[in-house]
């Protein structure tokens, strides 16, 4: 239980560093502020392609709900890395989606028909149904990332907190509204 509490406190404090791909942790507010759009959707397809000097993986997302911004019913999300033509590129920390996986995604502004994910795997919350509580939950996937409390030396390894999806959506909507207000 202490682990869960410390992990939760960590996420609340949002003062973190990561390693692997090494990243600073982004708070929910930072994720929201940096996102052009926040959606809930399902991965219905995937394609690996090469562009410039890098292999990328493109995920097709059927949008089920838009929490922030304005997007179409289908969008393409791109992350670096993948396997193509016998060559593989592995980049720690990128978000990965599986077919039929449901996720809440913090998306960057569209560029040439594609959108990136804010903070890579930090900007993807896997959605799943909990049999016991009969509720949907979301969990941030921090693949390739690690955290500790920034600078203080207090060890507070992070974990992805199990968040009730409805509460998470409410919070993101509120943060998006604040963001909008600030910009005005």
């Amino acid at each position: 239980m202490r682990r869960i509490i410390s992990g939760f406190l960590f996420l609340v404090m949002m003062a973190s560093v990561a390693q692997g791909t090494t990243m600073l942790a982004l708070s929910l507010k930072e994720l929201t502020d940096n996102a052009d759009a926040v959606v809930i959707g399902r991965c219905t397809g995937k394609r690996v392609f090469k562009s410039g000097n890098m292999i990328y993986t493109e995920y097709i997302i059927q949008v089920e709900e838009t929490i922030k911004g304005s997007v179409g019913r289908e969008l393409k999300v791109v992350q670096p890395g993948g396997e193509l033509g016998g060559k593989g590129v592995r980049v720690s920390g990128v978000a990965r989606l599986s077919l039929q996986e449901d996720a809440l995604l913090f998306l960057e502004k569209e560029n040439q028909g594609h959108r990136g994910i804010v903070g890579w795997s930090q900007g993807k919350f896997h959605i799943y149904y909990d049999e016991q509580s009969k509720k949907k939950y979301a969990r941030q996937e921090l693949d390739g990332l690690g955290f500790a409390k920034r600078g203080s030396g207090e060890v507070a390894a992070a974990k992805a907190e199990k968040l009730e999806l409805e509460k998470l959506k409410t919070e993101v909507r509120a943060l998006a509204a604040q963001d909008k207000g600030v910009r005005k």
Partner: protein
Amino acid sequence: MKFMKLISGLAALFLAGSLWAFILMRADNGAVIHWSNLSPVYLVNNNSANSTTKLCVADPVATVQNAFSAWNNAAPLTISVTYGGTTSLSDFCGKKLDDTGCDSTNLVLFSSQWEGGAFPAGALALTVSYYDTGDGVLGGVDMIFNDGIKWSDDPLNHANASCKGSSVYSISAVANHEAGHFYGLDHSFVGYIGENFVPGMAATMFPVYFGNTVWQDMVSLEQDDKAGVYFLYPQAPNPGWGMITGKVSSQNGGMFGVSVQAIRASDAAPVLGVVSEADGSYMLFGLPPGDYYAYAESPTIMGESYTYWVMDYYSSADKVPYIQLYKDIQVSSYTQLDAGSTIFLRAGAIPVAADGTVSGVDFNYTLPSPPPATNKGDDDDDEDSGCGCVLNPRRAVSGPELDLASVSALFLLFGLGLRSLRRRESAA
């Protein structure tokens, strides 16, 4: 003779199944990502380090060299990663992916950009590995430090006040971790005594920046790191390490991707962690002689099942319903795994001798029927629908690519064994 026994044991295990220990980076088909060139050379673009880095990091090149030296000297290895000098290059290996494959230039640089574009929000450093998808052989690895970050030789006690503090990060700690990826190691879960995370014992490949007051703990390699890199690139003779082998199973058969850890009997200190193979088998290889307890759980961080911390190949791992301490003891709380806990009185300490193998340390779970779904839900069986979702490891592991890798490793191990035998015969 003990070494030959070890070789024979390893060979038998390889023949019994595609068995690999530790958490190794893998291609989507399960092939272990590794170097076949055992003398990879890296270059450092020192000029790319910005003025702030140069102020707080006395010698960025030396820092990188120290990181690789630590890994090169972690155990008797066949691989030696060497420094090839500085370079002005800033293009990554991916430049030639279409035509001739990687250019084999392993680059370490400081940059505000990387080949894939801008750094993602918050990124401090990236390691990008290029490999052949058939056999997992690495063609190049590039390591990029974000020069928008304030790096320091000592973020806690640097003489220059501007080189320490909450927004300054240990370049050595990050370099050592990233260098582990260079060799082909994935993240490790070894780091807890009971509920408590112990920085001094946590693997360098543990995916956590522990904090600036303990940044030096992140630099030192632990047994899990040493055994992992030795497993990938073993040079005879074995350093005298033993192993524990067994299988994680349920009524449905072997369980894939379950984390198995060995903790020292004397103080419950974490020593090694591995992830079970597609057939449920596992091998805790690289244990110094002594008594150990072993337990199995779902890959966890902070007590939660967390298969996403490891690569694609493991993302559809089986989830075990509870922690099990060998033998057949259900652990209800991590506090029961604290040093001195009475639960250990019921468990059998496993004595591991130098070069010895203790086999048959099995974990058997009874799953409710139907088996609980994994986090990934119903995607596990979608193996090639054009969407490119994660392959079912149970099938992928039996594919020709991994078998080839297994056979190669088998030959390597036999070769080492034969060499050892010949040496002994010559000596006799």
